[in-house]
């Protein structure tokens, strides 16, 4: 497996470079903004004191050349210092940490739902290409992709909570319940682990609408591109050869068609993850879901730059790490890459 | 004087982390005016690389290619020098070598205006004339490539090249994507054009049975080296190199007799790690000890097989030559 190790090492090096690039982008955006951070930090009275401003700038390295300031910024990042929120004056990292589990729970559940449904629908559409089912799925998929997530969230909340009342109106848990003892921070998992069935039911009920809303957008995307990936595979001679061997249609579809489409589908899922994260930023506020999306919304409205940059940095890191994993898996599932 | 002469040409492909591949490892060939030189060999023998190097699409790592007595240069970002425009190439795939979005007339007009470096209109009478030359109606000029069959497209590609009034044309597997009848049509067109226009043609193919019907001189290539050269009929009736013998023996005959062609054992070795000595020796049924040690050079033989002298420096014309110790050793003494 020496070539395999080299493959992973190359990807890993690329990942590190990409992460550096990302921090550079957020550095540029936050460090070079117009405005005077010193005056903002020192407040109106101290901010008029030239000496205090100079001392503050010196203390924070702002009098140094840019590359040096980037290094300081990097150094701070490594120590987990993402700056303080302008709104609450608490460290951004601390704030992020309280919101991350909620978003992870939501993102994972939607990508699971969207992935399962999207792949199934996409494969089905490809196998029934140009027939009625394909046309119907085309409308459904494109419809999902075309719906603004924040609007869908609004409509579903109106219908599901306000009108028919089947779903809770927001949050992660019934306010009357105590959150299950924290292990992972994901309420559903924690409730399962602590066998807290009431909390589990409530967590699932709260999770349902936001998950469906986020999945609705992504499912269309996954279905559409899965269809394309399967169609690219299905015309190949080796598929016809598999049928000619007398294999069951099920074996051919799962063992041959999907196997060949697997690398493409992994990439699709990697991209779809971006859709889920984007959607989270747009809809969490509507569902009063206490995740980083809602946090980002609030920060954006209040123009709290360190917080926004923190969210951007976090999401970008998650996203590139997910895609790194996808890349490595791609190498695992395609023997031509694994060995070459 | 040879129109196109290739002397001791080497082409290496270097790739990071992999051994260098000697795609062409010391080939000398020359093509005369009004002559078709057929270069045959199996996939991976380096014949396409040789073709591309001959017109300057690939840089040789050693050796020279001379056209009309002056050395050729590699096609770079800049414009191709005027004195090389008489050396043209026809590609394998007639579906890829014509622009699908431009009318045929405009593409042939590119060729008409090539020498004078002028913009020629698609309705120029010279466009019609060259279409007629390759046996297509002049109305073809107004149509798009997808309206033609594979054989017709290959005629169009040839027409575009002829429009530039070349003196030498390199054709890289021009027949391999065509049906049998289209192959024969294009092959006989080449013979006709060679005679009519006194062209020097280097015809590259893996298919010995088609090439032997049109080539005046045959060169056989194996793993980057030319192993045998000579007048086509002589080689076909009396191949000297064991590889040529195997190649000819492997062509199945449509004689209705039910005889199986002769199989050649083994596989073509990895060109990145060519065998020592004669590159064919591991598969050669007649190999002797010397074959695995010393690399034989292409050596001119007389019909009786007597050695005349090494030919590494002089371009090989139609003289009967082979690169095989068996011939050089035994027939020389």
């Amino acid at each position: 497996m020496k070539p395999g190790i080299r493959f992973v090492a190359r990807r890993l090096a690329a990942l590190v470079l990409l992460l550096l690039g990302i921090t550079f982008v957020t550095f540029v955006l936050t460090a070079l903004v117009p405005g005077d951070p010193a005056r903002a930090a020192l407040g109106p009275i101290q901010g008029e004191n030239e000496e205090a401003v100079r001392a503050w700038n010196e203390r924070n390295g702002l009098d140094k050349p840019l590359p040096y300031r980037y290094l300081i910024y990097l150094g701070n990042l490594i120590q987990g210092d993402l700056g303080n929120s302008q709104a609450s004056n608490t460290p951004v990292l601390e704030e992020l940490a309280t919101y991350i589990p909620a978003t992870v729970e939501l993102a994972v559940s939607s990508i699971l739902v969207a992935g399962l449904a999207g792949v199934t629908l996409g494969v089905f559409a490809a196998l029934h290409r140009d027939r009625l089912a394909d046309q119907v799925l085309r409308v459904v998929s494109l419809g999902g992709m075309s719906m603004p997530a924040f609007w869908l969230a609004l409509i579903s909340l109106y219908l599901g909570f306000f009108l028919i009342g089947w779903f809770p109106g927001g949050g992660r848990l019934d306010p009357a319940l105590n959150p299950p003892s924290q292990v992972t921070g994901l309420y559903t998992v924690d409730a399962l682990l602590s066998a807290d069935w009431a909390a589990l039911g409530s967590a699932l009920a709260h999770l349902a609408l936001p998950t469906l809303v986020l999945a609705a957008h992504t499912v269309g995307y996954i279905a559409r591109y899965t269809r394309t990936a399967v169609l690219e595979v299905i015309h190949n001679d080796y598929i016809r050869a598999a049928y000619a061997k007398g294999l069951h249609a099920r074996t051919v579809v799962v063992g041959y068609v999907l196997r060949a489409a697997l690398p493409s589908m992994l990439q699709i899922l990697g991209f779809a993850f971006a859709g889920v994260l984007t959607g989270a930023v747009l809809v969490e506020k509507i569902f009063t879901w206490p995740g980083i999306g809602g946090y980002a919304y609030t920060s954006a409205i209040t123009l709290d730059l360190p917080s926004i940059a923190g969210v951007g940095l976090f999401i970008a890191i998650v996203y590139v790490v997910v895609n790194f994993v996808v890349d490595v898996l791609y190498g695992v599932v395609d023997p031509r890459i694994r060995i070459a | 004087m040879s129109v196109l002469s290739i002397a001791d040409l080497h082409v290496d492909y270097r790739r990071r982390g992999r051994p260098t591949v000697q795609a062409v490892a010391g080939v000398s060939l020359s093509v005369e005016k009004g002559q078709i030189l057929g270069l045959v060999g199996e996939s991976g023998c380096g014949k396409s690389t040789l073709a591309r190097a001959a017109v300057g699409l690939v840089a040789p790592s050693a050796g020279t290619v001379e056209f009309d007595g002056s050395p050729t240069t590699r096609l770079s970002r800049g414009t191709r020098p005027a004195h090389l425009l008489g050396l043209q190439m026809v590609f394998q795939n007639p579906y890829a070598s014509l622009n699908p979005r431009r009318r045929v007339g405009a593409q042939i007009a590119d060729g008409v205006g090539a020498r004078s470096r002028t913009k020629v209109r698609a309705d120029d009478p010279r466009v019609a004339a060259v279409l007629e030359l390759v046996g297509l109606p002049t109305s073809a000029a107004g149509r798009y490539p997808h309206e033609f069959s594979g054989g017709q497209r290959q005629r169009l590609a040839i027409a575009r090249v002829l429009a530039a009034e070349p003196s030498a044309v390199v054709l890289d597997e021009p027949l391999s994507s065509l049906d049998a009848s289209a192959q024969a049509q294009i092959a006989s067109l080449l013979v006709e054009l060679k005679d009519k226009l006194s062209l020097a043609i280097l015809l590259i193919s893996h298919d010995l049975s088609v090439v032997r019907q049109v080539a005046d001189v045959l060169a056989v290539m194996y793993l980057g080296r030319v192993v045998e050269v000579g007048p086509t009929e002589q080689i076909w009736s009396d191949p000297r190199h064991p590889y040529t013998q195997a190649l000819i023996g492997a062509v199945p005959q449509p004689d209705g007799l039910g005889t199986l062609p002769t199989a050649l054992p083994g596989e073509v070795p990895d060109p990145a790690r060519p065998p020592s000595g004669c590159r064919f020796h591991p598969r050669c049924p007649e190999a002797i000890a010397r074959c695995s040690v010393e690399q034989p050079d292409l050596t001119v033989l007389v019909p009786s097989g007597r050695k005349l002298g090494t030919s590494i420096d002089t371009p090989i014309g139609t003289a009967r030559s082979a690169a095989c110790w068996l011939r050089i050793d035994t027939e020389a003494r």
Partner: protein
Amino acid sequence: MNILSRRVLPRSKPLTVIAVTVIAIWLLVALLAPVLAPGDPLSQDGTPFTAPSGAHWFGTDELGRDVLSRVIYGARLSLPLALLLVVLSALIGGTLGALAGFLRGPVDGVLMRICDLLFAFPGIVLAMVVAATLGPGITNAVLALVLISWPWYARIVRGLVVSLGEAEYVTARRLLGASTWRALLDDVLPNIVGPILVLATLDLGGAVLLLSGLSFLGLGAQAPVAEWGSMVSHGTEYFQHWWLGLFPGLAIFTVVLAFNFVGDALRDVFDPHTGRAHG
């Protein structure tokens, strides 16, 4: 355009025709907004929170403004801005991509690494950071979105220039003495137009979504301008008054859906794998 008429129209499916019609209707609405709108999108002369009725088909908002008029005027903002966004991204990305593909070497390397970097951020997140940094406003929102959109065009155009530049018909042309520029202009660029047109059409829907998304976050159009995204945003604050959010959202949805349908049909035509038409 003859490629489009020759290839798309004869084979058009009814859904594609409907989609084209929907786009045409929206363009007309944007063009004729003053004529079509029953009232002024900014005048606050209605009773706040009137449910849809004969007088106000789409109801009125929290300030008594007519929602229908605002939705109609919203088309004047969203459609041209989406078009502007796509055209700018395609021009910038296309030019840079073509240069990278043509020059190769270090220029190419640097440009593609920049693209990789920008791809690393999920679109709206980076746009959000940029828009917040530049300050909220519709111009800054468009700029922020151009920043995240151009790399897609750059990468695709670069890929096409590289692969088409190696096409045998380009090599043949070069052997006939054409300069690299000549071959690029005559043989490569015309073959890129089709794919870019598809990408741009597909992208129009996405552009409308992104713009309305930034406005929804308060980083795009500012009050009191009638903009669909910010109208939905207000709708979330009064969500029991469903008409505030429903109609502008429906407007976004129909426009985006129509663009996606046209783009999807175009892709079927141009993609050799999934489409039946060839190169």
